[in-house]
């Protein structure tokens, strides 16, 4: 009988056991026999004051609170508005749970006051991470030290606190499930069918039937290092030598923390003029000193050092966990067919190009469905998000090149001239802007041919009759 009925039975026995400590009955659930007793103790802190904040604001505040918690635990994980951390390893150091809890309470309240929030938060302490989180979110403020107490504690918690979407919660409510205890009674196979495998994972993890995976929080660090030059320098190569020294320090900093960076800022302080700022941005986080030097060289290529440099500073704060690449263990042909590696090379190329010619000079075309030719083609920056909607393929013939502004054509004896004679070949195709738009346009477009054979896209302005313009070139 592999279902939650058994678990429900076991939960009932647990309740009985907790109520009458003297009575001991063997646990009928096969699941509990399998699960080993957890050696950990997790504390979850739920902050209702962070609910309703914008994502970036919430992340900023919760990481500030997590920094405070890092005084009490080395294993911290963040779940939206809840911080969960392991405390069993800290009990001895803080001389017991009471003193530890008092310390956490005091520090967190102080931090919340400092951040201008109500000093209200809820906690849950239990042997499993998910159970602690559920207790804290349901605002129960419970401390559970034994595995056997988990299920009775979870019984009265509403299903609203489970990680289920609206549809899944509705399904549960429709079958009369309001509290977690109701879930225990239902057969697991049926629940799996209706809600999916993942929906039950949180509960299984809460009662220690499944292992819990955590994403560790690590406090964001900043790196700043500067070098005061013994004498002013104008030579680019000498500046590069100084920067190499700073990069040495920076790379050691990254290596020690097993981090990689996705950008840093170099400030070259001038004696007279404005400081030179080199903003290095990477599309793929990196730790390679040689690559950083290549990017700096590309940057310096277009920046002339006119007045002597007296100080160089390197600031970095955007770190990521380093990707452990094991490609060296793979044969080269395997590496070659990996698309990720290929795009990696492209990203590197774009990074170096951006460093040399600037982000604004590299563009990618974007198509917008609009009948007015000026508005169909946009050129966006390389890192700008483009519209994912598949563009409608236009049916009418369009030129490859568009002039930045339509160029006026000369007319002499009913003959159009640009630099040469122009003859209309086909058309017209009427294109006009929407009537509610301010700048009304009404044009009759024609395909025209020049004397030399070049095909042009010309139009006659219907608002200013008699005026002809060339708008595009068919290459």
């Amino acid at each position, binding site marked *: 009988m592999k279902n939650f009925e058994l678990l429900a039975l076991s939960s009932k026995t647990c309740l009985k056991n907790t109520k009458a400590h003297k009575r001991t009955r063997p646990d009928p659930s096969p699941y509990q026999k399998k699960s080993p007793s957890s050696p950990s103790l997790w504390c979850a802190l739920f902050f209702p004051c962070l609910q309703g904040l914008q994502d970036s604001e919430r992340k900023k505040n919760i990481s500030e609170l997590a920094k405070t918690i890092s005084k009490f635990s080395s294993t911290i994980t963040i779940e939206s508005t809840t911080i969960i951390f392991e405390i069993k390893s800290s009990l001895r150091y803080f001389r017991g749970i009471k003193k530890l809890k008092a310390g956490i309470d005091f520090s967190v309240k102080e931090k919340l006051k400092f951040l201008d929030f109500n000093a209200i938060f809820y906690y849950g302490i239990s042997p499993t991470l998910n159970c602690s989180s559920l207790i804290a979110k349901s605002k129960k403020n419970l401390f559970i030290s034994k595995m056997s107490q988990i299920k009775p504690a979870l019984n009265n918690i509403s299903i609203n606190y489970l990680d289920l979407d609206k549809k899944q919660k509705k399904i549960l409510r429709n079958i009369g499930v309001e509290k977690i205890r109701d879930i225990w009674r239902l057969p697991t196979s049926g629940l799996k069918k209706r809600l999916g495998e993942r929906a039950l994972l949180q509960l299984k993890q809460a009662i220690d039937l499944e292992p819990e995976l955590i994403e560790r929080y690590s406090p964001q660090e900043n790196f700043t290092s500067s070098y005061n030059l013994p004498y002013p320098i104008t030579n680019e190569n000498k500046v590069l030598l100084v920067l190499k020294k700073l990069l040495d320090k920076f790379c050691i900093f990254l290596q020690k923390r097993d981090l990689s960076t996705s950008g840093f800022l170099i400030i070259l302080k001038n004696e007279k003029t404005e400081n030179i700022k080199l903003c290095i941005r990477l599309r793929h986080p990196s730790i390679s000193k040689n690559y950083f030097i290549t990017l700096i060289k590309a940057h310096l290529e277009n920046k002339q050092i006119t007045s002597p440099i007296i100080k160089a500073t390197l600031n970095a704060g955007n770190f990521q966990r380093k990707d452990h690449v094991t490609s060296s263990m793979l044969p080269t042909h395997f590496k070659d067919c990996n698309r990720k590696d290929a*795009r990696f090379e492209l990203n590197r190329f774009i990074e170096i190009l951006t460093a040399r010619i600037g982000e604004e000079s590299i563009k990618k075309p*974007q198509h917008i469905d609009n009948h007015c030719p000026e508005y169909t083609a946009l050129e966006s920056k390389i890192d700008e998000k483009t519209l994912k909607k598949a563009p409608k393929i236009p049916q009418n013939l369009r030129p490859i090149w*568009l002039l930045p502004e339509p160029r006026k054509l000369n007319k002499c004896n009913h003959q159009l001239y640009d630099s040469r004679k122009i003859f209309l070949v086909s058309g017209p195709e009427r294109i006009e802007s929407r009537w509610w738009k301010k700048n009304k346009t009404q044009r009759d477009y024609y395909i025209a041919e020049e004397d030399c054979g070049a*095909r042009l896209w010309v139009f006659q302005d219907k608002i200013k009759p008699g005026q002809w313009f060339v708008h595009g070139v068919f*290459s």
Partner: protein
Amino acid sequence: MTNSILLKSILNSRDDIWRLGDETPKNLEIYKSGLKELDTFLPNGGWPQIGLIEVIVEHYGLGELQLLMPLMRNLTNQDKILLWICPPYKICTSALLNAGIDIEKLLIISSEVKKKDALWAAEQALQTQEFGIVLLWQNHLKRNALHRLLLATKNNKTLGVLFKKEKTENSQSSMILKLEASSRKGLNMRTKTRKMKLQILKINGSLKPKRKKTITEIIIN
């Protein structure tokens, strides 16, 4: 007599020996141009996969890009990136979509960049395997700049195409193919096609183009 025949047969059996008068290197990998007449006209039956091609036009917009449209469509279908450096005008995406080119795989380097930066970008791109084709619009290129671009194409599978407006006597360069394109007047109204005159000015591997046919007319869109 027998020695000379023997020598000839040995030389003929080897593809890696170039002899004076050979038209093109024999083992040149090619891309089909997508235009039948062009394939028969081009050496080895298509565009070379590696190297630098020079296309000379009187002025941009005569139809020179139409020669490469089917190739670019195939390259984007193969997930290759196209790089256009310093295009002379703004690109009309409708025309590219009409030609079946995936504009998601097109990168443009603005014509506002300095000439030396444009050439540097082209050199870097030609050294990268990621690009299927690199198109560069530049006039008045010095011989050393051209030589650097040619060296960049040597070890990679990237085709570079240089569009120029002026005809220079720069024929000592080891450009793999040098073409002159000019448009013929007269648009076919039914098929919306026109004719383009193509002339081979230089092919890599021969002192002079020894082909019987160095000029042709190709129907393009």
